[in-house]
């Protein structure tokens, strides 16, 4: 009956979570917030772009003096400018509103600033003066160089494509680092989203006094595994809901949302790093699940459990504080400790695996350690659940739990 009951538990736990209005409010809050932010970015980005374009191409009534000899009079005229005939009074005339704008180009524009004076047109439109002055210099310089290629080269407007080799094979760059790092994102999302739910779910039988009725119809392992699977499914639904607006934004509004143009087709999914990443993720998930179930079984209420749960979460994410060392100096003592200490191992090892500094032997040791500790934690957790969950309003004494010959 165990398999039938596993399905029943998964269905019950999953359905009752996703049927709750509270779940959808919490789940949809993030994409709705993201959508609002995206819309704001989109609107601001579009208006800023339009304004810049308008400002760049606007014909502005201005006068100028050019000590640098860089400015091309024809370009300046085309942009609405004329050479100032009485520079001594130009600034005064601008002050009095008799002259719209006056630019003073110094002898060496790389050493001295271009002085820009203009009549006030509001905080946003005032930027036009600065934009026109800069554009005038750029266009005049292009005219002098006489080559768009050279101008682009000087401005650094070109791309490079690098290829490195390791052991005779292309070693890849960021394209090989990103795919295994997806497991880090996955691990982070799963634990952050599900940890509290896992704790609450484990405590539920105890808080509702249904443990004995459940334990006489169901093996505790089936119940715990059923809860873990259903929460994983709940997490998948949440991840899907969260990622949908991001995917839509990336595919359809990348330019408007100022999302970096990252060519996904360039990503290289290498078998071994992906396999190691997946195993580290699964091992880490089992370990933390076991620990959370154990905490839930021992503590009488969610509030009590939270005080024990917090240090576990801190331990888990503490490797992020030394992430620069993990990347730049994986041999350092602290990184080595974090790599092999079970609670810090998942994140440290996934990072090192992605950046190529986790060798085969270390990977095997960490994976084995996570699975062994994880399964051990789950086994202990099931035992604690069996006895802890009938200590309804008391904290379970571990000594007593393990003398019950479970």
């Amino acid at each position, binding site marked *: *009956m*165990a398999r039938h*009951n596993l399905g029943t538990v998964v269905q019950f736990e999953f359905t009752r979570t996703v049927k709750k209005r509270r779940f959808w409010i919490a789940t949809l809050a993030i994409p709705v917030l993201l959508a609002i932010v995206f819309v704001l970015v989109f609107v601001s980005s579009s208006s800023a772009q339009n304004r810049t374009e308008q400002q760049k191409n606007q014909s502005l009534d201005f006068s100028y003096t050019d000590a640098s000899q860089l400015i091309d009079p024809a370009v300046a005229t085309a942009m609405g400018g004329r050479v100032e005939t009485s520079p001594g009074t130009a600034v005064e005339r601008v002050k009095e509103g008799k002259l719209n704008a006056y630019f003073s180009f110094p002898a060496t524009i790389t050493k001295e600033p271009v002085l820009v004076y203009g009549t006030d047109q509001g905080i946003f439109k005032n930027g036009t003066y600065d934009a026109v002055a800069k554009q005038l210099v750029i266009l005049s310089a292009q005219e002098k160089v006489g080559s768009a290629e050279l101008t682009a080269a000087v401005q650094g407007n070109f791309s490079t494509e690098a290829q490195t080799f390791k052991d005779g094979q292309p070693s890849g760059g960021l394209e090989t680092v990103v795919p295994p790092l997806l497991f880090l994102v996955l691990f982070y999302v799963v634990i952050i989203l599900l940890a509290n739910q896992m704790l609450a779910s484990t405590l539920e039988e105890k808080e*509702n*006094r249904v443990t004995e009725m459940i334990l*006489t*119809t*169901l093996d505790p392992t089936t119940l715990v595994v059923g809860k873990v699977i259903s929460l994983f499914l709940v997490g998948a639904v949440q991840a899907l809901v969260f990622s949908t607006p991001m995917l839509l934004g990336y595919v359809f509004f990348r330019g408007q949302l100022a999302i970096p143009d990252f060519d996904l087709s360039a990503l290289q999914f290498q078998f071994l790093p992906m396999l190691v990443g997946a195993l580290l993720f699964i091992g880490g998930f089992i370990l933390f699940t076991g620990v959370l179930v154990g905490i839930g079984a021992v503590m009488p209420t969610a509030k009590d459990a939270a005080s024990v749960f917090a240090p576990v979460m801190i331990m888990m994410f503490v490797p992020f504080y030394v992430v620069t060392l993990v990347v730049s100096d994986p041999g350092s003592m602290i990184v080595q400790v974090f790599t092999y200490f079970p609670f810090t191992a998942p994140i440290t090892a996934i990072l090192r695996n992605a950046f190529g500094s986790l060798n085969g032997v270390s990977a095997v040791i960490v994976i084995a350690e996570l699975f062994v500790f994880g399964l051990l934690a789950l086994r202990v957790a099931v035992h604690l659940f069996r006895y802890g969950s009938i200590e309804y309003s008391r904290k379970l004494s571990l000594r007593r739990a393990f003398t019950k*010959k479970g």
Partner: protein
Amino acid sequence: MNAAAPLIHIHDFHIHFGSKKVIEGLSFDVARGETFGFLGSNGSGKTTTIRALLGIYRPTSGTLEINGKVFSDDFGSRLGYLPEERGLYKKESVLDVMTYFGRLKGLSKQNAQAFSRQYLDRVDLVNKADVRVDKLSGGEQQKIQLGVTIMNEPELLILDEPTKGFDPVNRRLLMDIIEERKEAGATVMMVTHQMEEVERLCDRIILLKDGRAEAYGTIDEVQNQFGGRTIKLKYSGNLPTSSHYKVALHETNYAELSVDESIDEAQILKELVLAGVVVRGFVAAKRSLDDIFIQIYGEEVAVGSTGTAPAGNTQGPVK
């Protein structure tokens, strides 16, 4: 499985929690189709025994079997268990909770829902099928609890202090359910402190004290084991003290006297009349279970008793 073999068989059962010996060498059987009373004061080990029988605790040593096997969740589909600590998933609807338990007990979703609706109709809660459990009153939740317990039409019903916290309506419902299951041939094992329920429902009983059996058998056998009788006396005048009886219950113009087996009832009557008591009613009967219970657990229950005096500290026979 031999139909004559007991459904529940417990032999030389010991359970220790650390250095605390909770049960010491307990042995008893529950026959198929009988209603068995499991009695004892608080802390005597009744709930621990049931939990060990149902695999929630593991025994230190001994045999605990249901239907010839150690309990596993496979038998869960044939068991109806109402624990002492009881509750329901409070944030779910009544129908969802009942369907879930029905499915765990091996019913199909359709059958679980059909049973639930039928039961809810019986207890006038059919219009609350989609209401969250925590929105129901305490009494309504008790009804759902009972429904969950019997929804697989169990062949073994284990009830741990079933009337604890029940209002009279639900107590009546529970009694009806027990009668129905008995008529259907189910075996019932119940832990209770309600002696009138035991006398009305139980075929056999066991009395547990400090993890040991104090008495075991049919109600008649237990009454015979402890001997003595109770005289129910209606009278006027002053009730004299006597070495021939103990006053077990004393109200205005009414008393229950515990009398030793060796004392003749006529002698008591004569003694009362000679002392000037006007006897208006005089009925001698075997000692009630209440009386025996108080005798066994006298010192323990006296602290919380409601005026019922202990009838002595004579130890009954131990199996």
